[in-house]
């Protein structure tokens, strides 16, 4: 006899004194605990529960139209594929149109490591942001987002190996506003895209953090692929600050 049979019998008021049941209860502590607690839990009264109105739901569904609703209704594999294409488009565009001038001189292993680390952060955060709603969510998004922030801040603030490559030398703030604007502009499409593609993008709650982590990662990646400046002041003022707008937007979105 299986646990499900015991449960069905107990809930249906069946005979629990049969030898098969007794034998199962001796061997299964969980079912024994359930049977022991069942009389104290009392009768279930499903008929007593109030039923919410369907009219508000019908109105909400009727108003859920337009392009954003159509994108959100795509299957999860399709939404994730489109999300990945959107995320990849930004670094590819930057590498094609505005690549950093010291690309050829940059240490290959470090280049691969930095790219891979940022891509892992972006991929993990985007994956969670576009998760299907019918899978359990235990709030792990916050830890992924926190990890993403740490990785992005560390990589964005890493000085270049050879600062002589830098066009701005050691001048702390020279060019920093441009890098901030450039990185932020590169982060915004990812922010918007993930919000539109997320099933509950209008009410993300705590998962706004992963959208912020992904878009900030894309912004930091874009600046990394574009700017060779290695001065500490420039990195903190122009590269690390790329995280600011996505996280401010996330803080605002979390309250909804």
């Amino acid at each position: 006899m299986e646990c499900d049979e015991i449960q069905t019998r107990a809930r249906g008021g069946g005979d629990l004194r049969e030898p098969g049941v007794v034998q199962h209860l001796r061997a299964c502590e969980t079912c024994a605990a359930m049977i022991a607690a069942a009389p104290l839990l009392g009768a279930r009264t499903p008929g007593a529960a109030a039923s919410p109105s369907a009219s508000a739901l019908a109105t909400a569904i009727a108003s859920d139209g337009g392009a954003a609703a159509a994108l959100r209704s795509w299957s999860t594999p399709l939404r994730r594929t489109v999300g990945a294409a959107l995320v990849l488009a930004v670094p590819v565009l930057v590498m094609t149109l505005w690549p950093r001038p010291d690309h050829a001189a940059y240490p290959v292993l470090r280049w691969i490591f930095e790219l891979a680390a940022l891509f892992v952060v972006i991929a993990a955060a985007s994956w969670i942001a576009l998760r299907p709603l019918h899978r359990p969510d235990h709030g792990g998004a916050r830890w992924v987002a926190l990890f993403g922030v740490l990785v992005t801040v560390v990589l964005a603030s890493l000085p270049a190996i050879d600062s002589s490559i830098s066009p701005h030398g050691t001048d702390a703030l020279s060019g920093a506003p441009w890098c901030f604007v450039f990185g932020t502009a590169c982060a915004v499409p990812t922010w918007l895209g993930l919000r539109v593609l997320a099933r509950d993008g209008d009410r993300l709650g705590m998962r706004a953090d992963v959208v912020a982590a992904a878009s900030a990662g894309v912004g930091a990646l874009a600046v990394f692929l574009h700017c060779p400046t290695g001065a500490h002041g420039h990195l903190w003022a122009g590269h690390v600050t790329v995280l600011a707008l996505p996280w401010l937007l996330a803080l605002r979105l979390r309250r909804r």
Partner: protein
Amino acid sequence: MAAYVAGNRPAFLSLFERWAPRLRQLFVRGGLRGEDADDLVQQTFFQLHRARNDFRAGSTVRPWIYTIALNLRRQFMRRAGRKPEHELDETSAPAAQTADPDAAIDSHHVRAALRSLPDAQREVIMLHWFQGLSFREVAEVVGATPTAVKVRAHRGYAKLRAYLEAAGVTVGGAPSYGQGEE
């Protein structure tokens, strides 16, 4: 659900009528007030509507509905500071003496006993005993292995029993479990 995905709009209303009262019970047992429970029921079905294109013919909708519902409940609790609303009101009157229609779902002691459980155990008990899901289904809904779910159920049932016995609840004759929902 398959009918709704295929374009049969009224099928969604049937789903709502069938499942909304059970979800409301789930939320109220989980410590939410009636109006919050109603709001989460609406949100559950709205999310189910948005997730419709992930549904595959031949699957069962029950684990979907409960998974979405529990996700929304966890989000609500996180936003509200991790405390079930009713926990703030430990001195509330026994169910039989209140005009709250939700109070009729369980006795005052059972509600208090459920509130005393850790969230992970309460979810398992609510799904297994009160909603009638099998351990395998509960495991799918809460995202744990069936073995882990059984352990939580064992501990939860034992705590419920201890709590209710300590509160002086006794078995008044044969229990009447026979009001199945299925």
